[in-house]
Each structure stands twice: as C-alpha cells, then as structure tokens.
C-alpha cells in the first residue's frame, strides 16, 4: 500500500498533465463544427465589448464607420453595387440588409472567424450571409444580443456556392488554407472555356446569398485528367485583412425555400 502511495506521489503531476491535455485536445477535435453556445466564444457580450474597444478604438477609422451606416439600416453609400438586390417599393421584398462593423477578424488560422457588432436585437439570425461592397465575407453561425459570430470565407468548414459570371457554370469556393487572398473553385467541368480574370459570383442556390454577388477572379487554371474537372485557383476580390464594415443579408424566404427543398427526400425512393 505504501509503495503504491509513493508511486502515485511520483506520477501525480504526469497524471494531471494527461487529464488536462486530453480535455483540451477533445475540445479541439470536436470543437469548431457546431457552435451552439455563444457564451464560450468572443461573440459573448463582455468579450465583444473588449474587442470593440481595442479593435475600433485604436486601429480603425471611425469616420468611415459612420459614413457607411444609415439610420434605416439599409446600405446607401454604395447603392450602385447593390442596385440589383435592393427592391424598390411595390415589389415583394426578398432580402433585407443589416449593417454591422467587424469587431474581430482573423486570417492567420486554418479556420477563421469574424465577430460582428450586430446581434439578435438588430435582427441577426444564424445562417445569414455577410458581404462587403467588394464581395462575400462569410456566414453567421452564432448570435448573442449585441454581437454575432460568422464563419469567414477563410474557413475550411465553409464552401460558398459559386458560379462563373459569364456562362453560369457553378461550383463551390473553398479556401486553400494557405494564403488569405487565394481560394480554389471546384466542380467546374473540363469542357468549359475559361479565361484568366473571369469573375466568380454567388450562385444563389444556397438560400444564403442572393445571386450575383462577386467573390473572386480566376488567376490560374489547369485541366485535371484524373476527373473531368478543372483545378482553378482564384483571388478574392475582398481584402479580408482590411475589412471594417459589412452587410448582413437576411433572405426572408430562406425558411420557405428550405422547407420546400426538404420535401425532396419524399420523392426519392
């Protein structure tokens, strides 16, 4: 018994180490994918406040902030770019826009997130798209009262449904995980004619983004003989490292569309 106690005394530090390390690694392994609890992320109120102070107080231009926001919550300073999506009176409104500022951003990890300063009190919900005037930024995955957390397009867990602007062939944009300016466009078949500099836009199939929001331009492509799809490398139009203001897009018909699409399984035997 004594020798057991002595043995235990000798290795208890190692045991504590193993317990703590395993706990941490379990969180890494099952972490990222589902984030139901906002409390343990930077979108929670206190963390959000601290980030608002540091990120915006010292490191960005406040004036620019104010200019881009309007009282009505609709983006007005750059309407030209969003012209197609802002419905005028008399039409059925499909998309609504909520302005927000980025409180925290990262580009250096494999799975990057963005914290925004608009939360459920401003009407932000999960699965809303986030865009800037230059293009797609991410998708909201968790919301607190005053803040929301979005998956950045620089996240390997997200693939944005995209298509070529000039011929409508669709695929999906997946980040390389290497350079914050570069991504891959997958699933474009070999027979399509491509040019360097072609624009890639959102396909509108996903019920998150409206159709035609710019994402990236093609900078290199090669035919892949293994499967009949291209390897395409694209450059983001957004500089994701220097973003300040964004629009959160609410698709008012998202629920209706997804419910209807849910019926698909009924007709597949």
């Amino acid at each position, binding site marked *: 018994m004594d020798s057991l106690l002595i043995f235990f005394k000798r290795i208890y530090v190692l045991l504590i180490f193993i317990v703590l390390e395993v706990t941490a690694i379990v969180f890494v392994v099952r972490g990222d994918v589902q984030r139901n609890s906002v409390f343990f992320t930077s979108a929670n109120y206190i963390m959000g406040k601290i980030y608002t102070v540091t990120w915006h107080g*010292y490191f960005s231009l406040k004036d620019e902030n104010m200019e881009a926001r309007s009282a009505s919550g609709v983006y007005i300073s750059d309407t030209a770019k969003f012209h197609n999506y802002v419905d005028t009176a008399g039409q059925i409104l499909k998309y609504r826009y909520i302005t927000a500022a980025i409180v925290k951003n990262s580009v250096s990890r494999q799975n990057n997130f963005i914290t925004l300063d608009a939360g459920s009190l401003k009407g932000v919900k999960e699965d809303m798209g986030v865009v800037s005037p230059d293009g797609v930024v991410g998708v909201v995955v968790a919301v607190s009262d005053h803040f929301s957390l979005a998956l950045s397009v620089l996240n390997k867990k997200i693939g944005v449904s995209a298509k070529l602007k000039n011929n409508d062939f669709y695929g999906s944009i997946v980040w390389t995980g290497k350079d914050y300016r570069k991504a891959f466009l997958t699933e474009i078949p070999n027979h399509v004619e491509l040019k360097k500099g072609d624009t890639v836009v959102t396909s509108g199939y996903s019920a998150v983004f409206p159709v035609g929001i710019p994402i990236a331009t093609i900078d290199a492509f090669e035919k892949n003989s293994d499967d009949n799809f291209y390897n395409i490398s694209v450059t983001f139009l957004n500089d994701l490292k220097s973003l300040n203001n964004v629009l959160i897009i609410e698709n008012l018909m998202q629920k209706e569309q997804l419910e209807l699409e849910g019926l698909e399984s009924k007709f597949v035997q």
Partner: protein
Amino acid sequence: MDFRVYSRLFLTYLLSVLIQIMVFHNINIGTLGITPLFYVLFILMMPYEVPAWFQLVLGFVLGWTMDVFCDTPGLHTSATVLMAYSRIKILEAISPRDGYETGMHPYLMEMGIHWFLKYSVSLIFIHHTAYFMLDSFGFDNFSRTLLKIVLTGLCTELFIIFSQYIAYRK
C-alpha cells in the same frame, strides 16, 4: 504559499492576456499572417515555488482564456498545458549547479542570457509546434506549418526578450 507571489502571478496573467489581445492580435505580418503569441510570457515568468500541479492548472487557465478570446476551443489550451508540463522538465534539465533557491526568478537579468535563451527558446518552440500542428490538424502542408512555427517563434522570442529589459529589470 506567499500572498505576494500569487498576487504578482495574477497581475502577470492579466497583463499577458490583455497585451496579447489589445496589441499582438492586431499584428499580422506578411501573407503567412504571423501573429506573435506573446501571452506565453505568463508561463515563462511563473516563480519556481509554485507547485507543479498548480503550474499545470495555470497553464490550462491561460490557454482557456485565450481560446475564449480567439474562438478556438482547446487549441491554445493544448499548447499551454504541454508547455507548462515541459517547463517542469526543462527546469530540471537546465538547473544551475546549486539548484534553484527561493526568491530566485526565471528572469533574464537574474539567470543570465545564456540560461534564459535555452529556457525560453525551447519552451516557445514546444508551445508553437503544438499550436500550429493542431491548428493545421496533422501534416497537411507541413513545410508551411514549419515555416510558420519558426517565424512566429522568432517574433515571440524577440518580444519576450524585450519584455525582460522593460519590465523585469533588477
């Protein structure tokens, strides 16, 4: 269990985390996106008299704090716990001839540059390796991860040495 030691420990913890979030999180060098992980200062500066099990717990707390700020469940924690455990082993391995006396600190000015470099470089390397390996999850683009470990490690080391001349003078 000296009150002064522990209040100082708490202050170091607060400052390391705040400086990391307010200053170093805004640094992002080059296309690799190098952000120095300065907060490991807290583990490096832990006094010798803190019991080993508590060093591990403190490592866990520090990592967890960073994870909450960075939305990276477990990532920083795995690295800091490993670092805290390695610290115990490394302190044994590089202990001075007469061992560590009470009242001594692992500061550059007290232990000398030679000892401090061995100590900090090895621990920062262990921490950064764990952090970036887990971040890229395996050996997917290994050379890039390696480059990131080395460059970020150099940046961190540089700032840690600066901190010694600024805040840990005799």
